[in-house]
């Protein structure tokens, strides 16, 4: 039980747990202490901006409230009741505005700017500064996605603290001293990495702004739609800023258990793929071998019906794992109930054994031992999970990439994470957790909703797939499936193919019928993230074509199957089966991690596979980089973030082969070889090499690296 302390703030009495920050304590008493530099998510307070000056009884000097915590009997006077504190606050605000250009009319931050708001509430009505303000060249692109206006910067150091103590990339720093201090990167290098965009939200003024949003909207012209990111399995809670039906910007929407208000640059900046040049907006029908024509929706649905009828009992659906639960369920109902075809190609394995070890991602931060297995860096597979692990390490946790069983058994709050191939949908990590008595374990799927899609498909009916001699029709659901070589191989064998895709170049030429796909930002529905958390997607932008549910519903009716065109209705039906009857509305804007009535409490994990016999050569881990995939490929300003053509290898392996960091090497396997730059990575295990999939060519299995 935490000790409560009694604090008086502006003559209001409040009891808070001992150690509560004074800013929060004041808030509990209904008193606002204005701040700029204070941001508890950035670590210890720094007391730099001096906006939060208050008077503490017994202390002759004004104190920065943000640096203090509540102690029993403390008597605090803020600017509301202390003339001295008010003078201090006025002084700070006047100083902050001395060099600020006050160009609010043309500043993208205007209207949603803490400096503007606090000046409005507390600031001087005029300026006494009659000399030259500090001027700098502006705006400076510190990366293709972020621009910096140094004249607007008030040097609160939020951005540099983020770079140093949250993302730990150490790229965004202050240069010079005193009045000449500026925020910068090293030389001309762009600020890069998975998390850079967060500084645009941390910035309390219009100094760091996303270039994509430059002059794109005023606050009174926009709406923020609370939804969930669909770019990876974390499912960060986001707001999509919409103006005139178009998504203009993605902002974080702090879910303290999932993302703590951080999002990655893919989630933030890749949304412009919605407006890609090769976006498919009309159905496309293949004519002859390689030609195609745009057809009307009526014709398209007729054609789809024809193809489906011809393949009754022999339809296979290749799923992407990016469908909403509702979409997957609707497709399943159409194909399974309507056409008696039960075969699906799921994007990845999903093991229910992990359910017994579910925990919120935020629990990672409180761990004392974190073991991350699987050889694919979390910042590539699930960036926000990487931030939680870094937070745990800063708090003193031991973070291992090899399983030290003794350490795990001795830990108070161990957490196991699997990121990479060989995880068997979570079964492997569940088996380890079971064996070692660990209570929370995570598996990082490669798709944003693989679990939801698999569950929805299974929930539709109980019939088992029959052995198929031939595939009558392959339905390729979504771009990830369309991009999958296995799906493409199956498409070669199928008698006909219907593809649902957003992008022309992915499907043109090999699908008989192409139906326009939509993005997660254009859909209503639900996703299940890697924690097993069911979260709500809200339609932020109107898709350029009817969404999947609309035409699946229409098509289903032709096979006497009832599928509603609205996500809430589909969800209601499905929820009765797998989510304990939860209503669509109850999913919630910040969804809790739920367990559902009727779900088995514990599914035993299948036994661990025999450890592979260590053979000759190096085991290749070819991974899907964060900045890859159909959406990223269509966002020009993200191209600088794409992985360099390099092979990562362990120091010892490099040494044994006489390979230096940065050297060009040949990676070969079975007669195929690729030339790459060698990067000696500290976190790599001996015997393993890592290459981004797009640079791995035909390499697989075991490879050799030579200078």
């Amino acid at each position: 039980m935490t000790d409560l302390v009694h604090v008086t703030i502006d003559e209001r009495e409040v009891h808070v747990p001992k150690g509560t920050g004074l800013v929060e304590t004041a808030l509990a008493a209904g008193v606002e202490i204005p701040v700029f530099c204070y941001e508890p998510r950035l670590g210890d307070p720094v007391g730099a901006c001096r906006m939060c000056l208050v008077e503490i009884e017994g202390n002759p000097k004004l104190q920065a409230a943000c640096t203090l915590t509540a102690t029993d009997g403390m008597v605090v006077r803020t600017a509301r009741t202390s003339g001295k504190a008010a003078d201090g606050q006025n002084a700070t605000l006047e100083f902050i505005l001395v060099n600020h250009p006050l160009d609010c009319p043309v500043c993208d931050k205007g209207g949603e700017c803490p400096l503007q708001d606090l000046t409005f509430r507390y600031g001087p009505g005029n300026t006494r500064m009659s000399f030259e303000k500090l001027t700098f060249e502006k705006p400076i692109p510190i990366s293709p996605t972020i621009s910096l206006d140094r004249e607007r910067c008030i040097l609160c150091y939020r951005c540099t603290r983020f770079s140093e103590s949250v993302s730990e990339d150490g790229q965004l720093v202050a240069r010079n001293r005193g009045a000449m201090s500026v925020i910068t990167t090293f030389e001309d290098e762009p600020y890069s990495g998975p998390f850079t965009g967060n500084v645009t939200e941390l910035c309390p003024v219009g100094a760091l702004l996303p270039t994509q949003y430059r002059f794109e909207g005023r606050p009174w012209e926009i709406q923020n739609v609370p939804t969930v990111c669909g770019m990876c399995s974390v499912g960060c809670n986001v707001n999509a800023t919409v103006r005139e039906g178009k998504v203009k910007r993605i902002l974080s929407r702090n879910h303290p258990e999932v993302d703590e208000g951080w999002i990655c640059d893919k989630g933030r900046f890749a949304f412009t793929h919605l407006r890609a040049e090769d976006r498919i907006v009309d159905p496309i029908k293949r004519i002859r071998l390689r030609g195609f024509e745009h057809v009307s929706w009526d014709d398209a649905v007729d054609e789809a019906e024809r193809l489906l009828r011809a393949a009754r009992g022999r339809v296979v659906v290749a799923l992407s794992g990016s469908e909403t639960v509702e979409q997957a369920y609707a497709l399943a109902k159409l194909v399974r109930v309507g056409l008696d075809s039960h075969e699906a190609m799921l994007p990845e394995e999903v093991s229910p054994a992990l359910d017994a070890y579910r925990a919120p991602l935020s629990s990672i931060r409180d761990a004392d031992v974190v073991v991350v297995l699987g050889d694919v860096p979390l910042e590539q597979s699930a960036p926000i999970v990487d931030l939680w692990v870094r937070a745990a390490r800063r708090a003193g946790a031991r973070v291992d990439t090899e399983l030290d069983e003794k350490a795990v058994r001795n830990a108070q709050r161990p957490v196991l994470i699997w990121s990479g191939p060989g995880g068997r949908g979570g079964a492997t990590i569940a088996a380890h957790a079971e064996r070692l008595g660990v209570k929370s374990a995570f598996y990082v799927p490669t798709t944003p909703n693989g679990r939801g899609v698999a569950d929805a498909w299974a929930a539709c009916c109980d019939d088992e797939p029959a052995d198929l001699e031939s595939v009558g029709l392959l339905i390729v659901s979504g771009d990830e499936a369309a991009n999958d070589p296995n799906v493409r191989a199956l498409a070669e064998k199928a008698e006909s193919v219907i593809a649902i895709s957003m992008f022309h170049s992915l499907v043109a030429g090999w699908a008989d019928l192409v139906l326009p796909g939509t993005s997660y930002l254009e859909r209503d529905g639900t996703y299940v993230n890697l924690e097993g958390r069911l979260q709500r997607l809200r339609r932020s932008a109107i898709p350029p074509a009817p969404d999947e549910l609309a035409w699946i519903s229409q098509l289903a009716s032709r096979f006497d199957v009832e599928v509603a065109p609205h996500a809430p209705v589909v969800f209601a039906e499905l929820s009765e089966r797998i989510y304990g009857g939860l209503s669509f509305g109850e999913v919630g804007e910040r969804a809790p991690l739920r367990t559902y009535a009727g779900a088995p409490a514990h599914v035993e994990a299948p036994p661990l596979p025999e450890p592979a016999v260590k053979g000759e050569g190096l085991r290749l881990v070819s991974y899907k980089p964060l900045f890859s995939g159909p959406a990223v490929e269509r966002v020009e300003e993200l191209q600088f973030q794409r992985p360099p053509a390099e092979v990562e290898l362990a120091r010892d392996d490099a040494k044994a082969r006489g390979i230096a960091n940065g050297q060009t090497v040949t990676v070969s396997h079975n007669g195929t070889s690729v030339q790459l730059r060698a990067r000696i990575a500290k976190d790599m295990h001996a015997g393993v090499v890592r290459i981004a999939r797009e640079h791995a060519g035909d390499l697989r299995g075991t490879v050799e690296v030579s200078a």
Partner: protein
Amino acid sequence: MAIDAQPALVLGGAVEEPLRDLASYRAVGGYAQLERARSMTPQQVIEELIASNLRGRGGAFFPTGRKASFIPSPDKVAKPIYITVNADESEPGTFKDREIMLRVPHRLVEGCLIAAHAIQSRFVFIYIRGEYSAEYEILQAAVDQVRAAGLLGEVQMVVHRGAGAYICGEETALLESLEGKRGQPRSKPPFPAIEGLYASPTLINNVETITTIPVVLQVGPEEFAKIGVPPDSTGTRVFCLSGNVVRPGAYERPHGITVRELIYDVGGGITGGRDLKAVMVGGSSFPVMTPDELDTKLDATSLGQKGLFIGSGVITAIDDRACIVQFALRVAQFYMHESCGKCTPCRVGTRWLVQLLRAVENGTATEHDLELLLDVCDRIIGKCLCVLGDSAAMPVASCVTKFSEEFHAHLEHGGCPFGADSSLDRLFAPVDQHAHVTVPA
């Protein structure tokens, strides 16, 4: 320059010739007090320091023994305990620590080892300003000699060189710098005694303070406490006399000598027999003294009654040729140059002060600007993260109030009434030289 000590305590044995090698320091009783201290319990050493009422010579004048007593004993914390010696002497007008390191480096080392024994520390870092090259070499040689002689015991001693930043003389900025960061002060609490270097308990003392510790033990705390102006200002100071005086130099004298005595009796008066206009007392960070205050004793209480500070023992005489606006401007330029940039009032305020003072000097200011100048000072004082902002505002405000007529004369004259005759005319300030400050595009 002159070196003189009456009595010779801190500079004892080193007034005529520097005492740089171990043998000659031992010949004047060096390291005997270390031996004695080591035969005492740590607590006993701290009690002697408390009884002596030795106070910090770096500027804050905090009781040294009490400071040491704040350090938790090693059995109460799971972390190492550090001593950090502040040899980042950069306060304008101050050169006593340099003189001490040049003349009696071993007394400093001995003081470090006694302090280490008192707080049971095994790690001593001496942070010496980067510009002190010869001083570094002499001090490092002394440490090497002591190490070779086996006197360090279990104590590790590292002489760490700064790289040119006045702010690193602020204790928490010094710790940040020593940890390999930009030397920006930390917000307190936590205080260094609890969370200092590497978040461990840390004792930070100025060079002269530490060097006085063997003296306290040698003369005995009770006798030491009788020197100077008991009970608050005990012992001697190595006063730094400079400016327009006949014999500038480092003079060790007991607390309580008057400014007049130092300037006229010890220093031989003002060069060329000119009139004295003002005195920078304690350093440039404090209000200036006017000639009518010359009989003030140099002890904390007497100075405090006049709103003045003893600081780092600086006495800089300014004769009647100096334009006080130019003086204030040059002081403000120094603090603008040295502001670390962390907190708003100091970073912005010091630049604004420079702009306002330049306007007064150029004759473009108005009556309103003079009021604003005082108001900006007021808005800096007591609002900053560390004392650097106050250090800029206090001297400037004191110039404006104590030399109000001269400031007004600038307004009336439409510029500096001294013209080229001012001794500070056109004095260039590094803040105007941004060759080393580049703003990347």
